[in-house]
């Protein structure tokens, strides 16, 4: 089945089985390996992508469901070689360890800050609660999102 969607700012068309897992389309057919797969059951969040700006689990979507959607994977977050403020904050705040949860975690944070630009730490924890991290204990990830919120907020008020 031919499926067209807007991926990371580009019109994209793939010819894949309609019921193929979207994460496999991204990772294997389009070679966008930044999106990870950790459990295949919607429990870990490693496969998180943005669909029309909102977090979704690409391991629980059929390829057909991407039709016509605006999809952002981690590869599509930086603009003109400049990383997103959330990515920058993850780097600066020590929020990255093994890095396997990181792409999903970053996208979850981007969506969270879109909806709530000034979250409390508890709200950040809530917003990231679908993304498991086994390395960090989440503390520095929450720090990073808090820092990113501040940075984005200052950017907007300017």
């Amino acid at each position: 089945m031919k499926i067209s969607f807007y991926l990371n700012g580009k019109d994209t068309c793939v010819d894949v089985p309609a019921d193929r897992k979207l994460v496999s389309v991204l990772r294997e057919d389009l070679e966008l390996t930044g999106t990870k797969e950790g459990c295949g059951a919607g429990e870990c969040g490693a496969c998180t992508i943005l669909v029309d700006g909102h977090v979704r689990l690409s391991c629980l979507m059929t390829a057909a469901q991407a039709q016509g959607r605006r999809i952002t994977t981690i590869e599509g977050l930086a603009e003109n070689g400049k990383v997103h403020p959330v990515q920058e904050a993850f780097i600066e705040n020590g929020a990255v360890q093994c890095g396997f949860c990181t792409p999903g975690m970053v996208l979850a944070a981007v969506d969270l800050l879109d909806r709530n630009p000034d979250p409390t730490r508890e709200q950040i924890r809530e917003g990231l609660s679908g993304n498991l991290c086994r390395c960090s204990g989440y503390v520095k990830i929450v720090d990073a999102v808090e820092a990113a919120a501040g940075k984005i907020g200052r950017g907007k008020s300017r």
Partner: protein
Amino acid sequence: MTTRMIEVGYPVPRFDARAKVTGEEKFAIDYSREGMLWAGARRAGLAHGVIRSIDISQAAALPGVYAVLTRRDVPGTNRQGIILKDQPVLAGRKVRHCGDPVALVLAEDRDVLEKALGLIAVDLEPLEGVFDPEDGLRPDAPLVHESGNLLHKAVIKVGDARKALGECDVVIEDSFEVPAQEHAFLETENGLAWQEEGGRITMVVSTQAPFRDRFEIAHALGLDVEAIRVVSPCLGGGFGGKDGATVQCLLALAALRAGGRPVRMLWRREESFSAGYKRHPVRMRYRVGAMRDGALHSIDCRLIYDTGPYAHLGVEVMALGMEHACGPYRVPNTLVEGLCVYTNNPISGAMRGFGVCQASFGIESMMDQLASKLGMSRLDIRLKNALRRGDRNGAGVTLVHSTGIVPCLEALGGHRLWKQSAKWKSEAGPYKKRGVGIAAVSNAIGYGRGLPDSAIARVDLTKEGKIRIYSSVADMGQGNSNAFVQIAGQILRQDGSRLEIIQPDTDLAHPSGSSSAGRTTYTYGNALIKACEDLREKLVHRATLLLMLDEPAGLVLLPGKVKHLPSGEEVPFELLGRVLSETDRIAVKEFVMPVAQDNVDSAKEFKLGFPHVLFSYAAHLVYVEIDELTGKIDVKEYLAVTEGGRVINPASFDQQVHGAIAQGLGYGLMEEVLTERGKILNPDFTNYIIPTSLDIPDITSVCVETEESTGPFGMKGIGEVGTNAPLPAIAGGVEDALGRRIRRSPLTAASVLAAPGGKGATG
């Protein structure tokens, strides 16, 4: 790459962070090659049985199946294992746990692979199994291996513990139990392998021990070690679970039979649960005696480790657990007995805390009870007995290196969370009970005696004038490679734009030990310091030549160049890179970790892995709040005070502390691999639960710095020590709240509710 100076002692952002936040970092799972086949194992699904027959005909006939292999197709010994090689690559005669592989399928894609695996008919004659280590020791128990179910028995004996118990003012006795824990790294076991022309096998694999893997594969498949190249990109988590062969031998076998095509093997999450390694379930019985003033006088304990069906690192895990069974305390008389027993449960092995996690629950629970019995504070009794440099520990080793448990406990005692604990407890809301728990722990560094804990570092000036480090110990996320970059940056005075690091590749780097045992940065870092100093001298000397100076005096390294300070003349690295021959641009140095110099005769049954001489220390404090209506334990505050020598990167230090605590809280509160007759009942992330961001509180990490004179820039590894304290600290907090101790982990809401003081069945 950043142009900031990369130095030791600062929270320099990890050099790998940028590639990881943009998704560019390639893990083993992200590698693929044209024409790739998929390999997968048919698992036994039965914990103990004799293989009557394996019918592969239907699977082999399925279109898209490239090959189906069984035991008969395995060249070599068909035996893998790190020390004792008792684990078959493909089971041929019998299966000893549900995850044993009995056939290997190579297929064109994953769907065909799954279908083919389902078409393999395995006829097994069920055997009685051993599912409890104590049952396994009965004379009439079924045998997991013909050699008997007792894999190893050992004793650590200092003084005369049993006699000394009679001399004590108080003696307490208790028993504890901990179940298996899953590593639950997010990147499951996987790799990609292919046979080069000429027959060599290259394997890109998620592994903690690339150099050792070659020996395991070579032994199992009858290959030459040099015929195997292992490449180990950054791991998506390891925690001990990728120390030792996972996919390696199966994947190499597949590559040998793939006609030169690349083969990928990727364990699904359920397969990772059933075939992967676990933290050992342990049963412990303790008798602890002390004098009226709180001084420990005698510890007599027995630890029984359920090691599963294969030796793997079972004996070594037990050895380390036994070595730590008396805690970070001075005890003149100790008797620690350990039994490591084969069962038909999942395979136990290395996991962060390596046997110490379990024993810490035992000894720290005893310390709490001793404090109550003697009417002392939990902090005071620990301080009273805490080891100081020069003391002999419970295994009879004199601590000649940095020993920081006293300053850790003192810092805990001075912290507001300790001082305010009584007030905080008194402010519990309706149906809430509050408690505060503490724990003091240590964790040894390195392999211990019996084999050299060594690393060989290589650092190059590249042709392009960059400094390139060839790491030979894998980075599973702990950030050792960042520490290496910092060390090189510090010694060679370079900024981030000049530094590169290559993850382990056995063809490029030099042999080193595994990424484990808190040794990674310590051992390789020490080797790297020497290599960097060597390279620095080389660069200065060659610059002397190029500048036609009399002698190297006055020459210093600066970012991208060597500068002659008196004249201001410079030699750019680019020039040095061009004019130096390849062999002249390389520095290679080795380091071997020191071992105990005592004539330690407290244990005779350990061939290797005992004793240790370097330890890191930590004291933790936790505030727990229990909901009386549901039994749910909420961790409200967490303080960790850690001593690991000097700190190379404070941010990485905290990362390790936080992460260890999160795994420890999971272990204490919710994680347990549930089995029934050896079959895992919760082999997925739906039913095996690990903490989410809402389950871990903010953690206060305090660093108590000492100087470890043998460590690189004074450091010791602290990756593991933090895992050992959360469970006993929580258990202590729960007892403080409820007035009753829970002796089995995890401390679930149900176990709390069932405890007197909880609102159990009668409300």
